[in-house]
């Protein structure tokens, strides 16, 4: 199955939770925000939210920046 991860196609073997996806990607969940099909996903829901075929996932973090 394929999902769209940060704008790019990304292959997964089977549906998995957002928490497991972050683990798989070696991303510390405390430092990111996740959008699941255009809605913000609250952190406490990562473990119980399943990523399915065709889903759109955005994972963002803070980077250096001042203005635009």
């Amino acid at each position: 199955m394929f999902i769209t991860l940060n704008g790019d196609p990304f292959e997964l073997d089977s549906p998995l939770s957002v928490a497991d996806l972050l683990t798989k990607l070696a991303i510390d969940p405390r430092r990111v925000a996740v959008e699941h099909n255009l809605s913000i996903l609250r952190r406490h829901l990562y473990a119980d939210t399943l990523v399915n075929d065709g889903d759109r996932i955005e994972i963002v973090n803070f980077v250096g920046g001042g203005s635009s």
Partner: protein
Amino acid sequence: MSPWPVWGAGAAHNAMKDTPFVIAGRTFRSRLIVGSGKYSSFPVMAQAHAASGADMVTVAVRRVNISDRSRESLLDYIDTEKMFILPNTAGCYTADDAIRTARLGREAGLSNWVKLEVIGDERTLFPDNEALIEATRVLVKEGFVVLPYTNDDPIACRKLEDAGAAAVMPLGAPIGSGLGIQNVNNMRIIREFARVPLIVDAGVGTASDAALAMELGADGVLMNTAIAGAQDAVAMAEAMKHAVIAGRLAWAAGRIPRKMYASASSPVEGMVGR
């Protein structure tokens, strides 16, 4: 009467005892707000932040690099015990994008504050005020503390205030231009109008620009490139710290009026040979 009004409504009985810098009920020790972009390295940024004395830093919200997870994280170099993180919506060109980015920043961060930017044009990076006001209204309703980056227009600032902005942040000059405050008179009018903190955001090039912003009565100054782009960012950060303190104190002290002609500061009586 002098055509120049006396600057420094501060003109207080006790200028040395300044009022604290409070935004939306939160008190900051420093009136200097710094950025986190364009530094030559994260360690230099951390040193510059320390030298600046700032206790608020703005950061951008971007996609995590999925393919390269080796890169260091910005937050490894910001002491969040000492620094309040202000996520921004830099790079957003529509109200919808800015609102979406603000929500992501809130989720990634520790607060509901946002430095709101809705850019209207790539070359000037001037704000799209219409979209900015709209986004402010939406985010305030969602409980955000909104600090909008706006142009140096007193009416735009007033509309943002009416929309619930916690501060107004007019530009001194285009972002990253280092030109200093281009429209001093507008800034003074904004100072007179504003009932929320006034923070000059963008355009500062060197210490005197920051001092001028404070002498005009700004409550704070936000800058990134002026420090990060200086040949010695750490030294410039310290210079900015002093400039902001000096400018604030000068404003509070109440400057002398400008005059056309000289007025001697020594007594005219008792001169030898007269």
